[in-house]
């Protein structure tokens, strides 16, 4: 047999382990993470928000912007509290995951018995004509099975997925790296870390660096008729010289290279190559990257070494060709030096004698690099999260139990259903099961279901019917304690327990004793059926005729047997009573008191929600203490009652 040994977490002391999985701690971790995330989402964060957003955040108000920055609310996700909460949540999660897998394993191996159903959400016992226990001597049949056992793993899978995502995120924070670079057509990205415009490496990560140079060969841009970008593709050459291979990347279509992955971002536009020359002084060359302002219109500006600012605007045609003519404006301070629409390659002479040349307008594109070797772990975590959550809410483990036991000429069927969660939603399922059991489906269930308690193979059990589902057949000889447990469980599951029987008998006796004391038979109506009511009316009436009432006290009551039989409840008892006859009016005792011992059988019948006494019998001759009746039988018309009162002292029967 396979034996799974789950880690005992021996390295984590028990106290800490318990502490980490207590509800308060888990809620506190969730609350702290929630609050910190709320703060992080509410204020612009360094490394996430645009520089302009951060600047306006710092400049907000006279004092609260700087104050919030001083409090570190612009770097919540890099703060010590956030990292501490994340670590605590991760460790708690690890403890919970190990605990849940262990629990799921134990529960999946659990051998259920009927006692497991004592607190089942749905239980029912009914009797029916014999259909399963065909012979008189048939042993009871017990069948316990579990449906949708896979639901047990839901929580464990979910939390494992969450743990994997956290591990992947931690790995990324440590060893992951992101980088960005803007390349123009014809420009090459050398195989060095410094070639990238900006890098965001993890705490322990090396900067990104592809092993081979990457050259942007060309771009293909297409727009919708409305002017919005439809598609963006670039062709790149990976490698040196003639050994380079041409590859294509597009938005949402990355390229895996040795050293990382290369992505194409949405940002692109024409780059304007400017040459600014002042005769005898200097020659400046500069590339201005124009960015989109909507409707295929691109704008950009540059400040030259000599202090002039150049504003450029270009329109890209619907075919995505680079512009051949631009709108240019040159400012010195607040003065306009030049304004016009120079063509590419045209030399523009400015008023101050400087010359400006637009050398070309190639396209530029923003490329992103990324390296994260734990992405697969995060994806696996996401998948497990979804599988686990789906199992938790859609696959609910249900334990079912059917016990069929003989009940005289009939058989008693006990059926119980115990869902793992959402019990109220299983009412229909239970009703279907009961209907199956009441109908022709009973035998099918007994055949089809997998018994949870299987007969143990025994070397000397040749004569035993292995296929039998009877209690005796289900248990090994050493399983006697289990048999006792099963029977105890069955007793506990029985709708009328010994305690309930005692309660019924005590209630009956106290009510009838009061009726005798007051001489009012109507007081007994709530506890007696019509047969007993007639008897009581006679017995109480006889005493009233004699001017007597009966003062009785139940001294001891022992329930010796309780039996449910075809709508009846039969309770056998041993009782000890004290009786005194009293005169109506004076209350004086008449005759001697009597201490009697009885062995009785009460037959209760169900009337609506109540059990009423239908019949009472002595099961052995009563022991009556007094030797002489306090009143003589003068009413010859009632010999039976008098005879009865001789043995039962007129109270009962």
């Amino acid at each position, binding site marked *: 047999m396979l034996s799974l040994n789950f880690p005992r977490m021996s390295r984590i002391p028990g106290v800490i382990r318990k502490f980490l999985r207590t509800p308060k701690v888990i*809620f506190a971790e969730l609350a702290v993470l929630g609050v910190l995330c709320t703060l992080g989402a509410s204020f612009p964060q360094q490394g*996430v928000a645009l520089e302009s957003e951060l600047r306006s955040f710092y400049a907000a108000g006279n004092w609260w912007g700087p104050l919030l920055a001083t409090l570190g609310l612009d770097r919540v996700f890099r703060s010590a509290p956030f990292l501490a909460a994340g670590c605590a949540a991760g460790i708690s999660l690890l403890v919970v995951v190990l605990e849940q897998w262990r629990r799921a394993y134990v529960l999946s191996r659990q051998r259920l018995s009927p006692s497991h159903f004592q607190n089942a959400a749905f239980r029912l016992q009914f009797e029916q004509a014999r259909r399963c226990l065909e012979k008189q001597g048939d042993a009871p049949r017990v069948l316990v099975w579990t449906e949708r056992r896979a639901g047990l793993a839901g929580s464990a899978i979910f939390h494992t997925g969450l743990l994997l995502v956290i591990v992947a995120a931690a790995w990324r924070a440590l060893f992951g790296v992101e980088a960005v670079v803007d390349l123009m057509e014809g420009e090459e990205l050398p195989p060095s870390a410094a070639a990238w415009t900006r890098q965001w490496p993890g705490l322990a990560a090396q900067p990104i660096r592809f092993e081979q140079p990457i050259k942007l060969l060309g771009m293909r841009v297409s727009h919708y008729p*409305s002017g919005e970008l*439809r598609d963006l593709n670039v062709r790149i050459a990976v490698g040196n010289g003639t050994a380079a291979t041409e590859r294509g990347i597009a*938005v*949402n279509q990355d390229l895996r290279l040795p050293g990382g992955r290369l992505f194409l971002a949405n940002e692109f536009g024409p780059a304007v190559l400017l040459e600014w020359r002042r005769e005898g002084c200097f020659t400046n060359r500069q590339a201005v990257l124009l960015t989109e302002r909507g409707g295929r219109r691109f704008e950009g500006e540059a400040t030259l070494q000599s202090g002039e600012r150049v504003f450029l605007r270009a329109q890209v045609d619907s075919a995505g060709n680079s512009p051949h003519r631009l709108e240019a404006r040159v400012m010195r301070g607040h003065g306009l030096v030049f304004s016009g629409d120079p063509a590419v390659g045209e030399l523009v002479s400015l008023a101050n004698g400087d010359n400006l040349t637009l050398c070309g307008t190639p396209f530029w594109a923003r490329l992103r690099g990324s390296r994260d070797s734990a992405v697969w772990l995060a994806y696996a975590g996401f998948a497990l999260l979804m599988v686990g959550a789906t199992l938790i809410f859609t696959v609910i483990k249900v334990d079912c139990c059917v016990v069929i036991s003989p009940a005289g000429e009939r058989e008693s069927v006990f059926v119980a259903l115990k869902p793992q969660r959402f019990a109220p*939603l299983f*009412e229909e399922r239970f009703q279907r099961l009961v209907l199956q059991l009441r109908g022709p489906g009973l035998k099918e269930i007994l055949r089809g279901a997998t018994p949870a308690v299987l007969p143990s193979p025994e070397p000397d059990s040749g004569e035993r019917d292995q296929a039998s589902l009877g209690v005796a057949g289900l248990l090994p000889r050493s399983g006697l304690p289990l048999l006792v447990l099963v029977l105890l469980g069955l007793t506990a599951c029985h709708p009328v327990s010994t305690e309930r029987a005692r309660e019924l008998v005590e209630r009956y006796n106290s009510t009838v004793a009061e009726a005798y004391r007051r001489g009012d038979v109507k007081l007994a109506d709530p506890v007696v059926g019509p047969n007993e009511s007639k008897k009581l009316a006679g017995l109480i009436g006889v005493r009233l005729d004699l001017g007597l009432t009966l003062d009785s006290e139940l001294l001891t009551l022992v329930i010796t047997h309780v039996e449910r039989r075809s709508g009846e409840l039969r309770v056998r008892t041993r009782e000890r009573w004290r009786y005194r006859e009293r005169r109506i009016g004076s209350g004086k005792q008449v005759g001697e008191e009597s201490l009697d011992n009885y062995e009785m059988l009460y037959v209760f019948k169900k009337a609506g929600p109540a059990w009423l006494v239908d019949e009472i019998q002595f099961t052995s001759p009563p022991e009556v203490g007094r030797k002489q009746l306090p009143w003589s039988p003068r009413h010859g018309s009632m010999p039976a009652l008098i005879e009865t009162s001789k043995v039962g002292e007129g109270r009962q029967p």
Partner: protein
Amino acid sequence: MSTFVLEALLHWTAVALYIAGTIGFAYGVIFARPGKVNWALGLAASGLAVHAAGLLVRYFRVGHGPYMLKYEVLSSNAWVAVAMLLLLVWRRRSWAAIALIALPASILMMGFGLFTNPEARSLPPTLRSLWLIFHVLFNKLAVGAFILALGSAIALLRKSNGASGRWLDRLPGPEALEAYTVRFLGFGFIFWTTTIGAGAIWANQSWGRYWGWDPIETWSLVTWLAYAALLHGRLFFRLKARAVAWGTVGCFILSVLTILIFPFVFPSLHSAYFQ
């Protein structure tokens, strides 16, 4: 008739049918007329069909699914919520009273969307991804499940306050209502998790990172944490039914803020597509 006029006509017809369905549900539930509930179901289902036609016309007109503008997002969210409601009521007629909460909420959502700018916008290349469809679809399913959970939670709160009435009496008992509330929350939670997962995969495909602490990403995580805390409280720590109901209301408000309000408040990658 231009496709825009047809689309608007279909949307407004759907609103009218939903309103008629709500009145039918109210009459059938309050005056205990099961026959009228069937009528109301039919009216709302007709509205759903007309609404679907409106969304389809929109799809053929703009060439993409309903995820670019408030107009499209709200309309499609309302469609999913009504579809889930009708599915529930079709299977469980005793739940018809929930329609009195879920249907007006959907009508409001749709009405609000119809008064925003319906101008068609083209799909940028970043949004052209299979993961976008999962991201948006599961987000809408989550909204639908959360609306049903909200309706169930409100009914549970009314019942646990001792309120009674014909429409309340027709609903299941408090225990069953609580179980249904948690189950709707659970389905919403699954869908929300899938939304985040699909978005993360898509982000990794587009930008080389699956998580970037973008404000709306982070708010969706906060919402997820809130639902996770609520479900943990109920499933593992035996949170009381009333607390679950109030938690459901609170989490619903948070999810609505995350989906519909915060994208307009906080600068985010998501903001551009909702304007």
